[in-house]
């Protein structure tokens, strides 16, 4: 390779190295602030002031869903810790026990009063008959 091209290669590598390290430092310092939601364990470990709007995500604990007219309450768990959620409104069609959920709301007396409930879909795609076979 001739010296001019060699110099160009080095300057490209140099620019890449600098921008990669810059971006990594930014991402590293933002760290968990880029998380879309807290897990119940993170919620327990951090002192979150009440009345602050937060997002909490995890799985809906099976058998925890209680409905009374338009009110619904359930428990979000990450299988280590869990937190109770109270919500008034319509939940997405994909909301069900043992599947992913993300709620936005305020924490008051260890209960989340949610304004918004979103279903989180996982990466599994399969036809219904296969799931039935797995259950049997």
């Amino acid at each position, binding site marked *: 390779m001739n010296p001019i091209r060699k110099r160009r*290669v080095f300057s490209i590598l140099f620019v890449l190295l600098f921008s990669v390290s810059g971006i990594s430092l930014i991402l590293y310092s933002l760290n968990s602030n880029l998380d879309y939601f807290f897990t119940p364990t993170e919620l327990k470990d951090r002192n979150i002031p009440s009345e602050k709007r937060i997002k909490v995500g995890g799985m809906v604990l099976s058998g925890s869903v209680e409905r009374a007219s338009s009110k619904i309450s359930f428990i979000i768990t990450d299988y280590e810790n869990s937190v109770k959620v109270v919500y008034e409104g319509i939940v997405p069609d994909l909301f069900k026990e043992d599947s992913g959920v993300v709620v936005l709301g305020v924490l008051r007396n260890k209960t989340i009063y949610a304004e918004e409930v*979103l279903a*989180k879909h996982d990466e599994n795609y399969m*036809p219904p008959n296969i799931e039935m076979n797995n259950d049997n």
Partner: protein
Amino acid sequence: MIKKFIHQFASPKTYLYQVDRFYSYIFLFSIITYIISITWGLLYTPEDFVQGNSYRIIYLHVPASFLSQSLYIAMAISSVTYLIWRVKLAAYLVIAIAPIGAMTTFIALISGSIWGIPTWGTWWQWDARITSTLILFIMYLGLISLHNSFSNHEKADKLLSWLVIVGAINIPIIKKSVDWWSTLHQSASITLTDKPSIDPVMLYPLIGSITGFFGLVICLVLLSSKYQIFIREKNKSWVKDYV
């Protein structure tokens, strides 16, 4: 010999004639693959066990998202080629790919939003995957308008190539966003290392639709690069002969 081959191919004239030679075959292959896979995916695969019929949007969303990132990588490779070897064709390719990349990113964002309404219960959330894809879309638009704002083509090419290389950092961030942070968007169903978490009956039409879409987008890139060659080399005698 390789060097000679590359030199020949890198001349816009040879490239143009080679594109014309292969274009119709690529187009025919991809359109047939795409139509078969889409029909198969939309009509002949079973419903998903939780999402029902709404999952079928993956036959558009996944190819578009895949291409939006692949096209950026192609732009970055062309940029490096241009900056090191000053191959003019590589510079034409960078600016030829940009609008098509913007288009596929747009399709990915829109189809994801449409899927989000029945699945998540929202069409937009600022999670890491969605936001980084939006940044990719804005980057494509920014690169295009930057290139257009110069009257000196060579200056524009150089600046564009440098920016494309710097912006390439966003690609691994998009790819890994679902693993590094907790996101509303699910993690990848198809990976190189693990067994796909999508059932084979749904996977085969998906692979077909990715292949078909890929080919159709390649065709667009070929046309768009032809257009760039015409604009940039319009004073050359061979272009006049060709037209």
